């Protein structure tokens, strides 16, 4: 084999290999083994006793302020239609039971899965004829937390069917894809190295069982999308905007990955 002047033999060989055997690269990224269902653990288990107590005790969990605000918003009339959530949905404790556990859920009009925040905004714009609440705004967080709280203790209930499979596949691919300046994939930390420590912090398996949650680092309540963007920024990758399809697809995959695990909203995390 002759090489062009200036091309290092190793590079040419690798390029040749890449052309002849594209499957080789795919196997590399898919090699990260998924966590067996029985070995799945919530991030709750990795926290200190005191932080766990903070989550379990309604009298000590600051998320309660957002829940109370959410309840008030649930009952407040809004928009040109002058309707409150309660006017259609009644008592959230009954009607919203199980809703968060099955989101992101396929929306026929949008023709794609939407997360709980987007579902709430679809109701606001479509039914209440009110402007949508901004992502990560206090009102949207409060309402989402209040609705999701009604699923606390229920198992996450995500099923993949022909309608949401393409979006699930995109999310799964994103989870396993190396990205950013560090060329890291989510799976490398959260499938392969969970339980070990990154600097002083324990690496969780990254199951979104408790969102929206009170994060000690934020000193406030935040959404799953905020956390995902936080991680991507930490990996020196481009974080998609709130509500981006790429993020919602990833959420769908993560919720499926956490299927049957109990909803903990509103959780507390470091």
């Amino acid at each position, binding site marked *: 084999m002759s090489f062009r002047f200036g091309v290092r033999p190793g590079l040419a060989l690798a390029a040749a290999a890449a052309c002849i055997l594209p499957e080789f690269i795919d196997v590399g990224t898919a090699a990260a083994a998924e966590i067996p269902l029985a070995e799945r653990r919530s991030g709750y288990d990795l926290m200190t006793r005191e932080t766990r107590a903070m989550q379990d005790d309604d009298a000590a969990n*600051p998320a309660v*302020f957002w829940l109370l605000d959410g309840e008030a918003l649930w009952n407040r009339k809004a928009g040109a239609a002058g309707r409150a959530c309660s006017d259609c949905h009644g008592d959230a404790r009954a009607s919203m039971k199980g809703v968060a556990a099955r989101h992101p859920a396929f929306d026929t009009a949008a023709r794609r899965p939407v997360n709980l925040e987007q579902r709430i905004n679809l109701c606001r714009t479509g039914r209440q004829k009110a402007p949508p609440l901004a992502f990560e705004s206090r009102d949207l967080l409060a309402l989402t937390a209040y609705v999701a709280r009604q699923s606390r203790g229920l198992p996450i209930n995500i099923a993949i069917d022909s309608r949401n499979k393409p979006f699930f596949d995109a999310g799964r691919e994103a989870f396993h894809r190396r990205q950013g300046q560090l060329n890291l994939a989510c799976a490398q930390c959260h499938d392969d190295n969970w339980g070990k420590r990154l600097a002083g912090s324990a690496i969780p398996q990254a199951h979104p069982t408790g969102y929206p949650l009170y994060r000690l680092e934020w000193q406030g309540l935040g959404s799953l999308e905020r956390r995902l963007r936080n991680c991507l920024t930490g990996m020196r990758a481009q974080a998609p905007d709130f509500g981006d399809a790429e993020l919602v697809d990833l959420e769908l995959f993560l919720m499926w990955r956490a299927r049957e695990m109990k909803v903990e909203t509103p959780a507390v995390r470091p």
Partner: protein
Amino acid sequence: MARAIVNMPAQAKRGEVIEIKTLAAHPMETGFRRTQLGTLIPRDIIRRFVCTYNGAEIFRVDLHPAMAANPLIAFATVATESGTIAFQWVGDNGYTVTETASIRVE
């Protein structure tokens, strides 16, 4: 908007020690943080927490920026008589919140 939460029993026996847990919604901005552009974020904290039992002070705390956001303050008192236990938080920028809870003592 919910500003403060108090958790304590609604009734107790005379002489019984009761536990009181309070939670206040407040960012407790330390005054030491800076924005990405380097501007110092001004201090905004709760400075004082006072608890009175039928008007008599039973517990008081002076808070400093080293207290966490959304401060939890848990303490105890003895149930002496039925009445009102009042809680007051006072802080920077005119922040003042009061909560009361009734207690029935047998």
